[in-house]
């Protein structure tokens, strides 16, 4: 009965086709057509892809997105590890610290956007107020740099705790004897971190890196609620760009850019995944 294995796979296959395969096919189908409301879709082949690739706005959004994700990772991973290192290892402080750290993770995305919008509002916000004390004229709706870094700040605030929790769990799993051995060997604090802590944290950090990369690449609600993608296109990241096109009912164009977007995420994640595989292989060989 060679069919039987397939029978067992059927529920999964059905679920997957509903959740991923069919929508994906639909998007691919859109991306090959020019669609106008009221008229029949016209098949245009890869024309939409060519348009997207030559669109300066799309390229701008992609580069902005890559810059954003890279910066987010460069800040969140080291910061997360640093905070995890500062947390108490035992005692009554542990629970409290972890709960407080976890708070940003519990807040729904739209609430995060609204809260930060209030923080950054130029007339009543706390951030413009504080920065004005040091003589900086902060304005998210006028200054492109302010807007970009504000979204980055929100992302760091929102997601660094995740890295902290991962790193903290990783730290707790390192046996104390490794530190005792380093002490016996006369290793400095830095060398202990470099040769004991960091190598032992590598698996969780690569996981964190992958999760944070994929998530930050999908950043949407924060720029939508805080800056609306502006000023200009300063905070129009990939998701927002695609959504704007779809809202404008350029479904073919939006479909093509979604597929390219998906492709970029897959390729980048694959590279990171290979990285994880290699590091875990190294440990188990």
């Amino acid at each position, binding site marked *: 009965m060679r069919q039987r294995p397939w029978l067992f796979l059927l529920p999964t296959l059905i679920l997957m086709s509903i959740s991923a395969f069919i929508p994906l096919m639909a998007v691919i189908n859109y991306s090959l057509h020019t669609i106008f409301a009221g008229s029949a879709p016209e098949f245009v082949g890869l024309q939409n892809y060519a348009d997207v690739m030559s669109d300066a706005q799309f390229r701008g959004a992609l580069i902005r997105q890559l810059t954003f994700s890279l910066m987010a990772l460069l800040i969140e991973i080291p910061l997360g590890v640093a905070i995890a290192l500062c947390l108490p290892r035992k005692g009554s402080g542990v629970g409290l610290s972890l709960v407080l750290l976890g708070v940003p993770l519990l807040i729904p995305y739209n609430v995060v956007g609204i809260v930060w919008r209030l923080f950054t509002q130029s007339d009543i916000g706390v951030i413009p107020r504080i920065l004005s004390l040091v003589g900086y004229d902060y304005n998210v709706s006028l200054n492109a740099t302010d807007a970009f870094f504000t979204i980055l700040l929100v992302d760091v605030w929102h997601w660094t705790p995740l890295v902290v929790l991962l790193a903290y769990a990783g730290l707790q799993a390192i*046996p104390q*004897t*490794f530190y*005792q*051995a380093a*002490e*016996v*060997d*006369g*290793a*400095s604090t830095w*060398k202990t971190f470099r*040769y*004991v802590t960091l*190598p*032992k944290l590598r698996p969780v950090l690569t996981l964190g890196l992958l999760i944070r990369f994929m998530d930050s690449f999908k950043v949407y609600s924060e720029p939508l609620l805080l800056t609306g993608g502006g000023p200009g296109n300063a905070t129009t990241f990939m998701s927002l760009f695609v959504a704007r096109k779809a809202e404008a009912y350029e479904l073919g164009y939006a479909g093509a850019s979604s597929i390219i977007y998906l492709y970029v995420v897959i390729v980048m994640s694959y590279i990171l995944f290979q990285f994880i595989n290699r590091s875990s292989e*190294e*440990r188990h*060989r």
Partner: protein
Amino acid sequence: MARIELKSLAHRYDSSRKGKSGFSIEDLNIAWEDGTANALLGPSGCGKTTLLNIISGLITPTSGSVLFDDAIVNDRPTRDRHIAQVFQFPVVYDTMTVFDNLAFPLRNQKNGEIEIESRVAEIMELLELTPLAKTKAGHLNPAEKQIVSLGRGIVRKDTVAVLLDEPLTVIDPILKLDLRRKLRQVQQELKLTMIYVTHDQHEALTFADHVTIVRDGSIVQSATPEELFLRPKTPFVGYFIGSPGMNTLRCESTIDGFKIVGSSLAIANRAGNLSGVLDLGIRPEFVVTSPEEMPGWNRLKIRAIEHAGAYQVLTLESGALEIKARVGDDTATSEGDFVWVDFPSDKTNLYVDGELAIL
């Protein structure tokens, strides 16, 4: 290398924990001579690891002093004590090569690279690690990792002592013997002061010249393996060392000798001036049995026989009394038979109030 001494040492982790008095180590005095192989033997949780960590400075004792070559080192931090420590679970720097692992302590001491290279090469040669020099330490098997961590300890010329904390726990049985032999060989070649902690009597007795038995944070006996076997200082040592452990029989003095409590067995008095209640200890190896009646011997029933290849262990009983005897495999016996038993006087130890009575 150096002589290591602990003087009236006591340590308490937490007053609410462990032991009646809250001490995990209590008023302990011991010295390990320079260049000797020593073992600390005791059941789990008796304070062996605490003792090692006190020597290496990872734990500060509550009171008492630690001396290296007669100098008190209590206030010396771990890194300045120059102790090598091999832990139960192999500790290596995974991302470094074997060479770099061994060079690590030397580099931390800011030695010159040329000097480091020759010293590491020397140690790798000794430990037979040379072919693995360029291998990442994370790729080694547990036994090789243990050797690397030993190497890291002895690579420094100023190493005072090597402490090993149950180093064979995670090693494959086949490799255990090998690794133990290598440890011993290195110890003898370099004249290292080694302190080997274990709960395995076989490991302790085969490795060390001098074995210290620890129980509940204090030393019960410190002696050569032979002495521990022949003259255990307390019934606990007698039982703990040996397989099966020593028989301990509670006796009461009678007019012409002793009567073993819980049975009708009698033993001719050979204790001279001893009287009252005492314990007689005899190793199963030294119990003499005979299938025929012998004058003055006691008759016991064989309750169980365990065959162990070259020998068999008989469990003998008489009333509530139970005695183990180790006899050759050629002795024809079967369960339920009766045998006559004697305890040769030169092989028995007498204990008064739990202490070996000197006759």
